[in-house]
């Protein structure tokens, strides 16, 4: 098991070690299939991309989001998961056995979605003309 892949899964919020091992294995297999015989660096890159794809897919499915149109929102959710220690982890997205727990975790995740700006409410701010006595006016 490549250490970077293991660490990466931990950093994105997969806390359960068994789940992490299983996901790492699946991602590596997928990477080998997609890339064939390649150098280790390319293989690792493919595997990490696959982790991101799986995470995004799980998030999109769980929250009814579109993987492309809602890419920014998905990135925000990924950030919330990765920064959500100790009370948030990505485990529930892949386990999905306890529906109530899953709903609770989803609600907690949505509550942590970064909202950088509120909806816009425009107020025009026209530039005021200046008329100067001894200087050129604006």
């Amino acid at each position: 098991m490549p250490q970077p892949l293991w660490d990466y899964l931990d950093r994105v919020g997969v806390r359960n070690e068994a789940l992490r091992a299983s996901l790492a294995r699946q991602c590596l297999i997928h990477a080998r299939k997609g890339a064939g015989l390649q150098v280790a660096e390319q293989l690792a890159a493919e595997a990490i991309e696959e982790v991101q794809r799986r995470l995004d897919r799980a998030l999109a499915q769980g929250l009814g989001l579109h993987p492309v149109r809602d890419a920014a929102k998905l990135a925000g959710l990924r950030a919330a998961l990765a920064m959500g220690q100790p009370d948030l982890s990505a485990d529930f997205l892949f386990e999905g056995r306890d529906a109530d727990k899953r709903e609770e975790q989803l609600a907690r995740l949505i509550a942590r979605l970064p909202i950088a700006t509120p909806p816009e409410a425009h107020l025009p701010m026209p530039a005021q003309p200046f008329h100067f006595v001894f200087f050129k006016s604006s």
Partner: protein
Amino acid sequence: MPAATVFPRRIRVLRRVVFFSLVVLTTVAALAMIASAFQQNGITPQELLLLFLYMLLILWVSTSFWQATIGFWLLLWGGDRQSISRLPARAGGRTDQAPPKTALVMPIYHEDPERVFAGLRAIYQSLRDTGRADEFELFVLSDSRNPDVWLEEEVHWYRMCCDFDAHGKIFYRNREKNIARKSGNLEEFCHRWGARYRYMIVLDADSLMCGSTLTRMVDLMEAHPTVALIQSPPLPVNHKSLFARILQFASSLYGEIFAAGASYWQLSDSNYWGHNAIIRVKPFAEHCGLPKLPGKEPFGGEIFSHDFVEAALLRKAGWEVWLAYDLKGSYEELPPTLIDYAKRDRRWCQGNLQHVRMVFARGFSPLSRLHFLMGIMSYLSSPLWFLFLLVTGFEAYVQSQTMPVYFFGDNVFPVWPESYAVEMTTVLLVTLAMLFLPKVWSLLLLLVRSEDRKAYGGIVRITLSVLFESIFSVLTAPILMLYQTNFVLAILSRRSTAWLAQQRSDHRLSVKEAFLAHWGQTFVGILAGYVSYRYVPSFFWWFLPVLAGLAFAIPLSMLSSSTALGLLAKRLGLFLTPEESAPPAVLSYLKDNLAQATAARRVVDDSLESKIGDPAVCSLHIALLPHRLVKRRQRHQLRALTYQVIEEGPGSLSVPEKRALAADPDSLTRLHILSWAQRGTGTASS
């Protein structure tokens, strides 16, 4: 134009007549005395020049003196009954349709994110203590270009949202193009979100405000619908270096009488100082959009010091602008060293001199023009003092070379030259009194305020502190005079200054830094000392305080930058302020927040590579990027930059190149994945 009850005109007129009469009468009296001494043998051209310079300078000094004296008088009798915080609520006016929400906006540009967010957290904590935090939303308006700072700001913002469970209440925006600096930053905010808020309270990156002060400001605005802006007087806090602690003490002790005096004659035509002020958003947006001035910088282009202009525009539109001199709980920080202070002065100098045009803009009230003139004079006074000293020295030399003639014409008896020593000494003493009496007024005021007396360390320590502060200001005044003279000359020769981030944290100056910054002043001091001692020895002794400040500029600047000396003075009870003796909650919050941030920082790698490699930071950044289309050519350029990072490391890119990469989600994702892929293989270039 607001239609509610406006502030009575007769009170404004009466107070201004009193104030300006005092100023003008003092100026005329001082001029009469000096002119009588000059008229001995007819006025020479250099005497005429001296009279003119003295008139300008004494006008400036007496304005400041009477402002402080009136402020002292008002405070001695319990304060001004006509201040905005004491006026009864006024009915009428147009109903403000905007929801009664207030935005706390903090424009930042390459500031230390740790300090910015520790301060914001403290403000928010204090606001929550009032139980009225729901009436406010926080907006961090970042203009930072450097991706290192940008990404760090985002992380601090998100952690703050999480820690206070304030998602959707605390916002962050990084502007794609930072047009028109701070005023453009605020303009963009008003344009995009202005209709969401009735008021905005503008903060500086180092601003701190108590929650109760914020809610009080909102209540005052609600009670006075004709008011568009209320400025609170920010007090400097939080300093350790000797330089900043002395300034902090002076500002805290003397500031109140000056602010009360200014409020006395300015009333509803006061000014805006750019931060720690509440603004009614709608009239601000309607009337304060700033154009680019014709011509190039420093006099043309974007308006540097936008605050004075915005206040003038609001007053022009019929809105009231007030200085709430008695509003407590408003704080800011100062530059920690003399050199940093001078750097800030360079920008302010350019901004104020750019207002020369505004003095001649049509439609502004005479008082608005006076505000601009006073801003200009606060910098122009330095070259005027410099010129005054030069001409005085020359005049003294001429006088020393003139042999008195005792017998002339048909006079049998000798005609003794008249002595004007009494008049000249009186002029000097009056000028010095006007410069130093405000300090005495502040001391006297403490005699009737027992609680304040204790908070400043007791009367003995306060008196010693005032004495040392006076000596320090006498020594540093000539250094600042030469700095400001240099700035004015640079601006007049059309040299503009860059928009640089400010150095706010304490740091001891090295010999090299101090030498490079002050060698010119030291040289001028020694040269002037030699020339005056050699040719006009009697003048040398009068000139000594000025010469000493210049000659010792390097050690003075270095010593005053010392935090050890600053803290020693604090332990000795010198230069104490009430905020040091009994810190308000907001300052304690800030201290705790900074300590926590420092502890957290020790375990985090701070480089850009590490930030891009961090899944949390990278995802957060991508989530916050605005959606934008990338053209094919740009895509190729971005790809080339990505490969450059891979092969040569991020250090090989310029800041704009790094920013271009950091603003593109695809490039970031690629770099993020590669940074992880390279970890196992050890091929990482960074």
